[in-house]
């Protein structure tokens, strides 16, 4: 689903955000991207959906060579994946239904398909009953559910999440992570960049750890800290 080979990213001011990153993520995987702030997690996600162009290396996402993508083809790439953010990025003057439908409308989808797929996405995230409410009337967790529904409404095979639970309390965080897991079980590949140690340690999924723009470790069933379970940290 995702293949990175020797990817580098340097900002114009000389900062090296990514340094020789190589990574393979298969179809249907659930991967955590961990590391301190400023180690390149967000940069890595951004080059995947071509918010920024890498300065070197090969990037393939769902069969699309992102590093060779012409600007006019970027919208096509974006329709292959969904992105979820810490701050939800919902439009406050549109209802939940409209926010989700918006993602289909702007791609020129038929009204028939919109009326069929929006309720399906909202039901999947458990927001069917709040479709007519505005984001301001929802809790943080509900807003993130709406954002996830928007990311999924076009049926992407890949979901990228940048600190999806950064603004949420522990209970809500657990609910959102369970939702992501459910989505993953339906076959969607999921990459989550996170700081949340508890979540990573509880879920025991593949953990890719980054430091200074490089991938330092990549474990199949990893913990937030290298080789340590949460209980070991607490006791030691």
């Amino acid at each position, binding site marked *: 689903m995702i293949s990175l080979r020797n990817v580098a990213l340097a900002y114009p001011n000389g900062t090296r955000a990514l340094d020789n990153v190589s990574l393979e993520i298969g179809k249907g995987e659930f991967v955590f991207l961990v590391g301190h702030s400023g180690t390149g997690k967000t940069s890595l996600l951004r080059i995947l959906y071509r918010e920024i162009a890498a300065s070197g290396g090969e990037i393939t996402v769902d069969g699309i060579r992102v590093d060779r993508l012409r600007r006019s083809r970027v*919208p096509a790439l974006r329709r292959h994946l969904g992105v979820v953010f810490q701050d939800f*990025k919902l439009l406050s003057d549109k209802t939940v239904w409209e926010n989700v439908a918006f993602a289909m409308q702007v791609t020129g989808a*038929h009204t028939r398909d919109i009326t069929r797929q929006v309720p399906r996405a909202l039901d999947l995230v458990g927001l069917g009953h709040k479709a007519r409410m505005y984001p301001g009337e929802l809790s943080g967790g509900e807003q993130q559910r709406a954002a996830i529904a928007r990311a999924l409404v076009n049926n992407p095979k890949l979901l990228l999440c940048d600190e999806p639970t950064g603004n949420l309390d522990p209970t809500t965080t657990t609910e959102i992570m369970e939702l992501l897991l459910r989505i993953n079980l339906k076959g969607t590949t999921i990459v989550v960049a996170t700081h949340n140690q508890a979540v990573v340690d509880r879920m025991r999924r593949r953990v890719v750890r980054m430091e200074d723009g490089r991938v330092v470790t990549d474990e199949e069933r990893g913990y937030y800290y290298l080789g340590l379970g949460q209980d070991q940290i607490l006791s030691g």
Partner: protein
Amino acid sequence: MDWGKTKFFLGEVFRNFTRNAAMQATAIGTVAVTIVLLGAFLFVRSMLAGIGTQVVSQFEVAVYVAPDATQKQIDAIQTSMRADPRVQSVTFVSKKDGLAALRAQLKGVVDASIVTSNPLPDKIRIKVKDPTTVPAVAASARRLAGVQNVVFAQTLVKQMLQIGSVLRAVGIGVIVVFVLVAGIIISNTIRLTVFARRREIAIMQLVGATNTYIRMPFICEGLLDGLLGSALALAILAIAKGALWPRLVSGLSAVSLDWKAANVDGTALALELLLVGALVGAIASWISVGRYLRT
């Protein structure tokens, strides 16, 4: 046609337009002022051009026949001038008719009875189709046998033609400036509405909307600004013309002109101004959205 899509699109345009009502009003107002100035200028210009053509078309070439010319020569002059494709009409004025006309003209000014002999030569009046050919026609008439002298208002023709070309040149410059000003104003307004919607644009790009799709509502907004602005300007111009035109005509009634012909075709001008307004609006917003999409 997918009615739902259309409805969504129109809704977006309408929401955009009403959300920044004050800003739209400013843009429409400024476009209106610009178009009023442009329209007034174009109106005066084509009116002057109309008057100019009329004045120039009254110019004629007077061919004075030599006193010793034979009737055969006089006929030959007329035949040759009639055959000239530049010539519209040829009229022979005998010395007798010429004197009668002069008497009539001087009646009440000078006591014409003092004129006992007839000093006037026979004259051939030539009207041309295109005023610019007056000098050339005069020159060719001068070469014919039996012609004593050829007279036309040389300097006047030249000046009128010159004024015409200067007006045209200045006019193009003025129009370009006006259109540019209107364009810049609309472009700035659209840039503000684009800025107000930058979050929405970012989300649109995130979920895979094409740049063309993102642009469309803004283009429509600019188009609407331009159209409404020029419509307002047209209303102002129509009212102003209704109030001023009769006064102008009555104030200048002494000038012998066909004022009806000097009047400007308002419908054509109105359509032109509407088209200019709409185009300027659309192009200006195309440019200002483009700056935002290049991130």
